[in-house]
């Protein structure tokens, strides 16, 4: 799923590791979600939204991502 996590992180000057710490997940998990290779569950999407103080739909866009 397409998302704006990379941009939102950059705006806050957070590394993937910083975001992972805040979300209490691994850095690989943040990377997998950020690159659109792994769709987060609804609870994780809500945690992300709360952290960025945005709505889920302001972070994620359900346009399919082409991995190839």
């Amino acid at each position: 799923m397409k998302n704006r996590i990379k941009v939102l992180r950059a705006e806050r000057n957070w590394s993937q590791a910083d975001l992972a710490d805040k979300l209490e997940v691994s850095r690989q998990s943040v990377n997998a979600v950020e690159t659109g290779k792994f769709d987060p569950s609804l609870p994780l999407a809500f945690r992300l939204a709360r952290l960025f103080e945005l709505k889920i739909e302001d972070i994620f866009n359900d346009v399919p991502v082409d991995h190839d």
Partner: protein
Amino acid sequence: MNCSPTNLAKKRYTLRLSLAMVAYIIFLFGAVYAFKLSHPTGVLAYTLAILPALPCIGIFIIAGKYLAEESDEFQRMLFTQSMLWATGLTLSFATLWGFLDNFIPLPHFQMYLFFPIYWAITGFASAILRMRYR
């Protein structure tokens, strides 16, 4: 920072796995020596023979506990997918060997080897999947 729930779950998993491996080594050597020295029979022989298998069975319980305790859904998904790959490949190999052995004389395959094969495939699949999601 280093004690996020996902790290704690992994630490517990590693600790339990290490304990199970130590138990396995002790039980295996114990059983081998007991059979060499005293040639046990009856219930004692059966008990000694299955002792090394118990920590191996425990490792599946440990893996299940890890999945229950791991709060990171991506890590859970990776571990589950790795074990599914191992399950599929190990059972496919066992089925193939079983049918081949039924019709063609083949060297006898030691059944206990399926356990290390299963976990070797799990480890390999985990490495491949991590590369895929990098």
